[in-house]
Structure formats: structure tokens, C-alpha cells
């Protein structure tokens, strides 16, 4: 299925952009706690300021809407590109660029809101911290069992599937395909990342919105409950989707199962996020009239999205743009995390470009100095001709099946260790444009090798046959 990856990314990106648009760029700013990362204040509701805020909000919303529509059009255009490798590389670069681009109106308006604050004479009281002694460190909403149980279920599916793939548990029809193992492993990883994040969010500093401790306690409890519910829901969605995938695999083993699974997952995930967003907006609205203390730390938020406060010893703070928490990059550990994330991002972009270069560079299989050399930018395999046993020319028929264990798998190029027709651990160097491949054994390892076309593959086979004689 050529467009499987595209459909998956489309199903992920469209709802993500929609949720971001409706959450980050609201039509009604009066009920929001923050307006583009700047704390909403009573002064903004006064006649003159209110008109200016409305103008900024509507202008920004319009820009975000244009970017969102342009993104949808671009996604459609990417899907029209016939070359799968180029398409996937463009998808990766597009996703990274689009998430940044979609945030630009927010960041630009953050500067406008800060300038408006100065214009209407709101003096910053930065450096003032309020703490409620009654609530300090005592408000928790997350019940650990509720988030651990779904992860245990996913872990159980993963272990059972792995044992089945390794042949330790008999039964089923698709042994050693690693399809369910790979999928449940991926979902387990997501679930395991969610657990510490959920605990961190549950231990966030309590906000002081009033001089009345009960109001502060109720407000913080409500906020943390909303966070806890979201993380618990996400963990259960993870587990349910893995179970659904396992059940679907019992009836049909097709790529369509994966598409169904991703669609169900994204639908449930977006529903959970939308519910969370609705809840937090309702909580802020409910407590708006009871808020008597407004802490002004807007200047610590660079462009409303990056928290930089070296005097604050907290590493984790609640986000102002998006959902969840972010790190204080003024904290020593925050600086280290930022550098690591930066390196990770640059590496990801470089990898996408590198993989595209690899995929677009022709594969070469040659015989040099009595050695078979498989090269694509670098030499992958060098096999002495004397070690090659029983070479045979095989056809890639409709039943031909490849499943990656380690390596590159970007259609039409498949290089690395693969499961080939249920045979695990094959050293593979295949171009699917060739209808033929050469299969042989050398030093106890099975090799499956092809040229860029059927004729090139036949030529390689001829050379191996000649060497054998």
C-alpha cells in the first residue's frame, strides 16, 4: 500500500492542527486565562484596551486560519508526488516546519500584547511570588493505579506477542511477523513516557489566585484533576488501541488494519485532548471572578512559549502555549535538556535528508578482487566469492514478504537485516524495482540481493554462477 504512510500522517496532522487552532487561537478571549501567553487582566476589559485586544485576537486568528488552510492544501500537494521517497522526506520536513509556522502568529501577538500592556500603563510586578501555605505540596489528583494498569495491559500484550513471534508460545497464523510486537512496543513506549509526565504535571506548583486558601485549593485541585484525567484517558486509549489491533489481526492481516488502528487512535486522542481543553477553559472561566491575585511573570515567557527564569528553581512549569508542561530553560538542567533537544532536532532533519540521498543514490552490486560488494553510498556487504554457497535466482512474487528488523526500509530500497518470507535475520540488499533477487548463504547467514532492475540481478547471478564453476 503505497499511500499508507501518507494517510497515517494525514490522519495525525489534520486533527492536530484543528485542535491547535481552536485551542490556541480562540474567538472569545474574555474567558481565557492567557491571551497569547500574556495573562488576561481586568484592565484588558476596559473599553479602549478591549477594542485593541479584540483587534489583535481577530487578526491573529485570521493569520492562523490562513496558515491552517495552506497546510491542508500543501498536504494534498505532497500526496500528489509520485515518488514515495521524496514524498516521505517532504512529509517529515513539512511537519517540522508547519508546527513552527503555525506558532508564529501566536508569538508575534505575544509581543503585541506585551506592548499593549506597557501602552495602557500596567506596571510589571515581576519578582513577586505568592504561595499558599495550606496547599503547598499537598494537592494531588492523580491516582497512580489508574495510569499504571493500562500500561501493564499493553506490556502484557507486548510480552505475549514477542513470545509468540519467537515461537515460544504456539498458535496463530502470523508467527514471527513482529507486527503486533512492534506496534504494542511502540504504544508501550508512548505509555511509559506518559507516566512520568503525568506525575510531573500532578506535582506542579500550585497557583495562588486568591487570598482565600479554600479558593486556591479548589482551583488547583480542579486543574490537576483535569490534567490527571487526560493522562489516564490517554493511557487507556493506548491500551485499548493495542487490544483492538490484536483482535483485528486475528481476522485479517493487512495494512488496512494499521490504518483503522491509527484512525481510531487519533480520533480517541483528539477527543481526549478536546475534552481537556474544554474543561480547562471552563475552570478558568468559573474562577475568573474569584481571582483577586494576578501574578505578572509574562516577561519570563519568551514569545509566550519559552519559559526562562534563572531565579526559579523549578524545572517543570505549566505551558502557556499548547497543553501540558514545559521546562524552565533558565534552570541548569533545563539548559542541558534544551541542548539535547536541539541536537535531536538537527539530527532528525539531517537524517531525513541523508535517508533521501541514500534512497535516491543507485545501488551497485559488483565483483571486485573475488569479493561481492554491495554498495549504496557506502559498502554494506563484502562477501568473498569462495564463501558463497548455493546461489539461486528467486522471483519476488505476490506472496513475497519483507519485514524490517534493523536497517533502512524506504520503498523501493530495503537494506539491512530483514525477515524475508518468514526467514528471520536475512542480510538484505534489495531494490523492489527488480522482479528478481539472488538468495545465497555465506558463513551461516542468508543474503537476499538484487540490482536496480531484473536484468542487473540476472547479471549478478550470472557472475556468481561463473565464479562457482
Amino acid at each position: 500500500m503505497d499511500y499508507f504512510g501518507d494517510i497515517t500522517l494525514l490522519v495525525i496532522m489534520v486533527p492536530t492542527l484543528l485542535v491547535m487552532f481552536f485551542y490556541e487561537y480562540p474567538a472569545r478571549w474574555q474567558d481565557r486565562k492567557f491571551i497569547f501567553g500574556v495573562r488576561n487582566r481586568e484592565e484588558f476589559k476596559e473599553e479602549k484596551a478591549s477594542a485593541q485586544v479584540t483587534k489583535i485576537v481577530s487578526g491573529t486568528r485570521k493569520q492562523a486560519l490562513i496558515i491552517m488552510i495552506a497546510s491542508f492544501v500543501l498536504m494534498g500537494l505532497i500526496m500528489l508526488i509520485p515518488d514515495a521517497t521524496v514524498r516521505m522526506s517532504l512529509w517529515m520536513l513539512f511537519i517540522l516546519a508547519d508546527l513552527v509556522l503555525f506558532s508564529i502568529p501566536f508569538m508575534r501577538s505575544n509581543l503585541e500584547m506585551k506592548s499593549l500592556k506597557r501602552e495602557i500603563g500596567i506596571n510589571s510586578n515581576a519578582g513577586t511570588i505568592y504561595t499558599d501555605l495550606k496547599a503547598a505540596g499537598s494537592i494531588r489528583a492523580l491516582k497512580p493505579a489508574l495510569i499504571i494498569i493500562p500500561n501493564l495491559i499493553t506490556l502484557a500484550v507486548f510480552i505475549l506477542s514477542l513470545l509468540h513471534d519467537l515461537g515460544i508460545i504456539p498458535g496463530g497464523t502470523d508467527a514471527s511477523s513482529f507486527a503486533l510486537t512492534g506496534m504494542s512496543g511502540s504504544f508501550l513506549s508512548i505509555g511509559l513516557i506518559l507516566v512520568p509526565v503525568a506525575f510531573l504535571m500532578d506535582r506542579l506548583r500550585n497557583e495562588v489566585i486568591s487570598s482565600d486558601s479554600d479558593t486556591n485549593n479548589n482551583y488547583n485541585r480542579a486543574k490537576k484533576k483535569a490534567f490527571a484525567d487526560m493522562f489516564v484517558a490517554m493511557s487507556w486509549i493506548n491500551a485499548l488501541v493495542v487490544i483492538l489491533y490484536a483482535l483485528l489481526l486475528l481476522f485479517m492481516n493487512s495494512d488496512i488494519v494499521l490504518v483503522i488502528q491509527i484512525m481510531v487512535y487519533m480520533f480517541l486522542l483528539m477527543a481526549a485532548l478536546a475534552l481537556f481543553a474544554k474543561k480547562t477553559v471552563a475552570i478558568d472561566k468559573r474562577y475568573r471572578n474569584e481571582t483577586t491575585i494576578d501574578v505578572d511573570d509574562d516577561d519570563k515567557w519568551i514569545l509566550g512559549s519559552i519559559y526562562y527564569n534563572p531565579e526559579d528553581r523549578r524545572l517543570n512549569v505549566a505551558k502557556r502555549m499548547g497543553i501540558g508542561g514545559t521546562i524552565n530553560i533558565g534552570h541548569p538542567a533545563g539548559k542541558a535538556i534544551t541542548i539535547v533537544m536541539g541536537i535531536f532536532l538537527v539530527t532528525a532533519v539531517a537524517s531525513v535528508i541523508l535517508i533521501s540521498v541514500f534512497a535516491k543514490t543507485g545501488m551497485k552490486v559488483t565483483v571486485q578482487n573475488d569479493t561481492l560488494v554491495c554498495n549504496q553510498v557506502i559498502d554494506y556487504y563484502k562477501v568473498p566469492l569462495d564463501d558463497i554457497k548455493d546461489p539461486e535466482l528467486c522471483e519476488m512474487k505476490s506472496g513475497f514478504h519483507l519485514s524490517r528488523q534493523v536497517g533502512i526500509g524506504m520503498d523501493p530500497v530495503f537494506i539491512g537485516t530483514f525477515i524475508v518470507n518468514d526467514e528471520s535475520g536475512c542480510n538484505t540488499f534489495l531494490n523492489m524495482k527488480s522482479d528478481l533477487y539472488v538468495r545465497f548463504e555465506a558463513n551461516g547467514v542468508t543474503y537476499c540481493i538484487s540490482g536496480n532492475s531484473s536484468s542487473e540481478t540476472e547479471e549478478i547471478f550470472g557472475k556468481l554462477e561463473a565464479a562457482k564453476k
Partner: protein
Amino acid sequence: MVIKIDEYSDVPIYMQIRNQIVMGISSGELKAGEQLPTVRALALEIGINSMTVSKTYQILKSEGYIMTDRKNGARVRMTIEKSGVISDENKNELRRIVSESRLSGVAPEEIHKLIDDYYSGKI
């Protein structure tokens, strides 16, 4: 009880916390026997070093306002010793406030009224 910390004040943070806890006990916002947050929780909440909060609690303990033990953490004392005298340090502070008020042209009655209001807990 809400405490307010000014990071740019000349008064050290541990003293700001100490003063506000004492005011809270005096006004009744912090009741006798009331549990105070642990050193770690309060430090995390304010975003300061644990040593700062620890120093505050040590001072409050030595002054007889709170009691601490490993099992129950810090609590406001059930009975606070009433010496019936103003400490020399507070007398000096009061003298400074009165002097500055006199220089600013504040009438003595106004100072008396303010002291009465503070003492009775009206403000």
C-alpha cells in the same frame, strides 16, 4: 494563608517568610497546632533552595512559634510563651518607623490608631 515573597526586596527571603508566618499566627490565620508544609514542599512551591526554608523554620522554632519533629514535620505551637515585653530589636524597629512618620508629618494619633488596628486585627 497566602505569603508574598518579593525577590527584589532588601529583606532576605528567609526573613520575609518568617515575618509573614509570625503575622499569620498573630492574626489567627495560622491556628495553634496547624500543620505547616514540609521544608521540601514549601521550597518547591516558592521555587527557592530548601536551605532557605530550613533556616526560616529553625528561626521560628528557636523563637518558640513552631515546633518540629521528624514524624509530624512543622506545626504551630499550641501555646506560645507570652513574655509581655517588646524585644530590643522590635523597639528599635518601632523607633525607626515613628521617626520616619514624624519626619513625614504624620500625627501621633494616626500612628496610635494604626497600632490599635493592627493589634486588634482589624487590618
